[in-house]
């Protein structure tokens, strides 16, 4: 009898992960199809980001640095769309520039242009889209000092000097806000070279795993932060346009709940079987 019990405890400790994966997939699909709509409180970091853009006068220059590949979409794309939408609503002049890990940036930009209403915006006058710049951190630092040493043309091959919006822009100091959507090191680069180096208010939207790395700069080089899916969901709620991130947050909740349950079950199994072994 005792031996039978011990065997069952050991099984509990060593559940085949494939069963866990199946449960995880099933639980992730349900809230995507039928959002639960759990309440979401707003973190200070997200509110700071929102307030910064909200407080800018119409016509201010905003820099949006895309440092994520398509693989970062689940956490970063909803935030990118929300911030761009907010910037357009506020009438900001937007400069988009991809770099770092954003090698497939054209797909990201296609999604942004398809999701945000740019009908009242004129290309070259109200917004500009540059192609990929090389150099990673050095590229970001160089952009902060001299845009034209990195870019001579925009994404379409038009000369930078032929774009009316760029006539008065040549360094970080010409922007009122810089936002980065980073799945890698992009947050650090913008904080160091634009936030601390040039005094530009910086918003960092990062994948959740990167948050602990940039949080030390909150209030000192980083004005606001949009933390992964939750941050994007909070931003959507602040904009009063709940969308993709709010739906995904339900899935995130359930996945993490399952994770905690499995850790607890695994520990119960571990202690029970250890006691029996003794």
């Amino acid at each position, binding site marked *: 009898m005792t031996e039978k019990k011990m065997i069952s405890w050991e099984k509990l400790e060593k559940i085949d*992960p494939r069963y*866990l*994966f199946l449960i*995880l997939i099933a639980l992730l699909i349900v809230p995507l199809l039928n959002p639960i709509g*759990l*309440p*979401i*409180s707003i*973190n*200070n970091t997200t509110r700071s980001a929102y307030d910064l853009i909200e407080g800018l006068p119409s016509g201010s220059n905003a820099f949006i640095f895309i440092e994520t*590949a*398509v*693989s*970062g*979409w689940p956490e970063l794309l909803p935030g990118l769309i929300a911030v761009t939408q907010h910037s357009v609503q506020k009438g900001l002049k937007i400069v988009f520039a991809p770099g770092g890990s954003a*090698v*497939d940036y*054209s*797909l990201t930009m296609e999604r942004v242009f398809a999701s945000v209403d740019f009908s009242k915006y004129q290309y070259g006058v109200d917004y500009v889209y540059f*192609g990929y*710049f*090389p*150099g*990673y951190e*050095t*590229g970001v*630092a*160089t952009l902060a*000092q*001299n845009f034209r*040493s*990195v870019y001579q*043309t925009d*994404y379409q*091959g038009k000369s930078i000097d032929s774009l009316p919006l760029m006539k008065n822009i040549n360094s970080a100091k010409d922007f009122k806000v810089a936002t980065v959507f980073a799945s890698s090191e992009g947050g650090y680069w913008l904080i160091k070279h634009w936030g601390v*180096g040039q005094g530009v208010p910086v918003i960092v939207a990062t994948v*959740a795993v990167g948050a*602990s*790395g940039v*949080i*030390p700069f*909150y209030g000192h080089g980083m004005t606001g932060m949009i*933390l*992964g899916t*939750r941050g994007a969901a909070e931003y959507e709620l602040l904009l009063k346009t709940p969308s993709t991130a709010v739906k995904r*947050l339900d899935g*995130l*909740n*359930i*996945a*993490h*709940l399952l*994770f*905690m349950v*499995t*850790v607890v079950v*695994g*520990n119960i199994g*571990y*202690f029970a079987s250890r006691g029996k072994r003794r």
Partner: protein
Amino acid sequence: MILKHFTTIDLASGMLMSWAVQIGAFAMALGVVAIVRLHGGYIAKRTPGQWFYSLWMMIVLIVMTLLGLHGEITAANSLANPGYNWLVNNVYSALGIAEYAITGFFIFSAGFNALKARTWESLFMIIACFGLIFYNTTLPETVWVGFPVFGGWVFSTGSVAALRAILISGSLGGIAFGIRVFTGKERGYAAE
């Protein structure tokens, strides 16, 4: 560069950074040469279990380079080539998404297997892990609204203090290491 950061003296930092960007672009070419040498060797020697993958890598490298160059030459944009664009959008990106998504499952099973309270340290690790989940998800705040408030305080106060200490000491160590490399006192792996 240090003078530029801490003073108003510019010197030639802007020019140096422009150089760094250009050198970085050229480093890509150097990377290609290194890859061709390495994998070319595998193919020439028919290294068991490797040469076929190396050959496939070389084929992909050549195809992507030629298609990208075609777009650059004809329209000053590699993505203007439909073949290159199709491969990036439908192969590279799809594989990237799949790879990133799979890590979620690995983390799940790794957490289940590793997060066992075998020692006091691992127990604290589990508590910290649960604390972060309570802060970063919204389900716990349906039970108690104080979770995000308390979690936010820990995250932006205790965590920030510890991380700043690590960051400052790491940066000072990096500067000291750099000085030792430049003065020839550091002859370890990274300096050679």
